[in-house]
């Protein structure tokens, strides 16, 4: 057992830190949920890509540095420490890419991964539907072979709650290709260009008034068959690989929480607070650190050749609730200033709080995750 980073990892850290110090914009970018902010964040992805920092863990041929999981964690620590911009490309690089590397054809990887890494093509996720949220297998959007156009599919239906859907260039989603099959079968994973004829996007203003997500309507959208990811009819298992990334190791790196918890401890040190806040601040600090330790623990097992076990199903519950706890504690310390939208401390914590509240809902609600923990880790029977 060794909980220190080795010389190579520390050298990588120093290199990342130096690059970030000279490249991270000094003024925060405009919100990525606006057209202007979206393009500013896209430009930032391009800046990172040019020096090979946008997707460090990917193979070099697609724009990465081929680094291992610990270097990736080190990079993330430095990224959050530098308070660098939010990743507008996160649905693509953290969720779709691991799935594509596992299930994609060579041609698909060569076609889609480099522009994903450079920010030239930003992806959104088309999973939820008005009647299929937690019960994802209940989706009704469908795809059928195009009888008039050989080698093509025709997509119809409606997706919703697609984060960054208002401005994204591409969408990955699951569609029902065999209405007769059992509901977890007969699903297929598609890659769809958002400028395809028949795609209509309706932005949905969020709780803060900005258009963070969107509804996407598919009306006889023609999609060539080389835009199917994985086998036709195997969409559920391909989607579960993406869900594993979403809930497991790749979407939420611990640095995000340790950085916020460090700021919370500083806020407490400068402003003080009642006894109840002392407990909450300490707990938030510990939970962020525990999540980091758990990630190191899991990553060490992966590095030793073990698979990520069902234990990863605990992750999403823990990071999402830790995020809420960190931001709640901060708002409690801010007291009457907590509602202020001004730049800097109050507004930033409020923004983070609103975002944190989505955590227990997206990527499978925490109630669904608790069922998974009970069934897969504790062996309890399905209801």
């Amino acid at each position, binding site marked *: 057992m060794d909980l220190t980073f080795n010389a190579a990892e520390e050298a990588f850290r120093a290199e990342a830190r130096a690059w970030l110090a000279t490249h991270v914009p000094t003024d925060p970018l405009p919100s990525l949920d606006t057209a202007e902010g979206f393009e500013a964040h896209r430009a930032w992805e391009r800046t990172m890509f040019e020096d090979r920092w946008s997707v460090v863990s990917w193979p070099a041929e697609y724009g990465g540095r081929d680094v291992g999981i610990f270097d990736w964690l080190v990079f993330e620590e430095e990224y959050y420490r530098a308070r660098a911009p939010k990743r507008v490309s996160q649905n693509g690089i953290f969720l779709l890419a691991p799935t594509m590397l596992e299930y994609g054809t060579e041609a698909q990887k060569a076609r889609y991964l480099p522009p994903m890494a450079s920010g030239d093509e930003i992806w959104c996720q088309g999973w939820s539907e008005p009647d299929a949220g937690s019960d994802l297998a209940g989706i009704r959007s469908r795809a059928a072979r195009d009888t008039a156009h050989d080698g093509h599919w025709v997509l119809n239906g409606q997706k919703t709650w697609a984060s960054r859907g208002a401005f994204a260039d591409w969408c990955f989603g699951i569609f029902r290709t065999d209405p007769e099959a059992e509901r977890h079968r007969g699903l297929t994973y598609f890659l769809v260009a958002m400028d395809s004829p028949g795609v209509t996007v309706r932005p949905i203003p969020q709780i803060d008034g900005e258009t963070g997500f969107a509804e996407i309507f598919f009306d006889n959208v023609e999609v060539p068959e080389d835009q199917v990811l994985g086998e036709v009819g195997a969409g559920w298992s391909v989607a579960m690989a993406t869900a594993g990334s979403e809930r497991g190791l790749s979407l939420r790196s611990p640095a995000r929480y340790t950085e916020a918890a460090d700021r919370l401890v500083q806020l407490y040190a400068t402003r003080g607070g009642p006894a109840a806040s002392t407990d909450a601040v300490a707990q938030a600090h*510990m939970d962020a650190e525990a999540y980091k330790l758990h990630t190191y*623990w899991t990553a060490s097992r992966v590095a030793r050749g073990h698979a990520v076990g069902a234990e990863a199903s605990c992750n999403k519950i823990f990071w999402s609730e830790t995020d809420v706890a960190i931001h709640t504690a901060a708002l409690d310390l801010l007291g009457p200033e907590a509602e202020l939208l001004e730049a800097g401390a109050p507004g930033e914590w409020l923004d983070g709080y609103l975002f944190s509240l989505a955590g227990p809902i997206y990527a499978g609600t925490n109630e669904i995750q608790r069922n998974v923990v*009970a069934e897969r880790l*504790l062996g309890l029977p399905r209801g």
Partner: protein
Amino acid sequence: MDFAFSDEQEALRESVRTVLDTECTPEALRAFELADEAGRAEQSGNRWAVLAELGAPALIVPEAADGLGLTDVDLVGVLEEAGRACLPEPLLQTAALAAPTLAALLPDTAATSALAALVRDDVSFAVGGIDVTAAGIVSPTEVSADGTLRTPRVVGARDADLLLLAVRDADSGWQLHAVPAASCTTYATPALSASRDLSTVHWPLASDTLLAYGVAAEAAAALLADRAAAGTAALLIGLAERMLSMSAAYAKERHQFGKPIGSFQAVKHLLADARVALEFARPATYRAAWSLATAQPTLSHDASMAKAMASDAADLAARVALQVHGAIGYTWECDLHFFLKQTWALSRAWGDAATHRRLVLAQARTG
């Protein structure tokens, strides 16, 4: 970065688990609690001999002092198994507290002879006279008018061969002593868990039992308290795991409304929350062991964090376990109560979760 146990460490844990699965069953715990003092001494003696055979008490004693020369990272899994089995014997006190404390004080004469007894004669230790508060360690040991020292709430004092006891005098500061049981008078203090065996110990202040005094004794006592927090966290992790596995098994077997109660989401979510708390307390506990083994500057923070998280995780597991078992869990007949009582005691021993949260925050602010 390699946050994992070696194959040897896993094998050691497994061997302890196998032994305790035979030697420390719920039936054995029941027999132990029902036995008279002589019967308990005999049962404890037998179990201790088996643990000594495995080398458990002297696991982290340096090879130069005839120990096995392993570290806290090897020991943490063993302690977790002791917690899982609800072991009544003082493995924590002997292997995780007395052994390294004495080893660090070598070549002091009293420490040398006490450590030799631990290694060669398989003696067991009780440890007392140090309490953990949010402001740091304090000693509850009182000096009576006749000069006798009185240390309250010493666990397992009646069955221990040697007692590692601390006292803090307002004038001369801290002292740490290794006192033979024969020099002590113990007065049993009734407590909820019969297997904890609490006593008030009366002991004489003597120069030949003195291990350390002043600043050195205070530093040794503070490190001992960190070791106790980290080691108790490991016991609590084992207890939480045991209570959760008992409860999950019961939830699958017990039927109501024509279904196993474990198929209801209300029951599933109780158990899932306890499972998540355990999942994240575990690496914190292993990290504390590594920090002790490698003398990290953050070891005190890390030990406190482990204790706070493991106390909360085990308390939640206990609460959920009782709720899931329902009325049967409230009976003496059901095995659950051994684990509940041990958890309730250990979650507060050596500083409860709230105390350690404060210690963590104080160090997070300065660190």
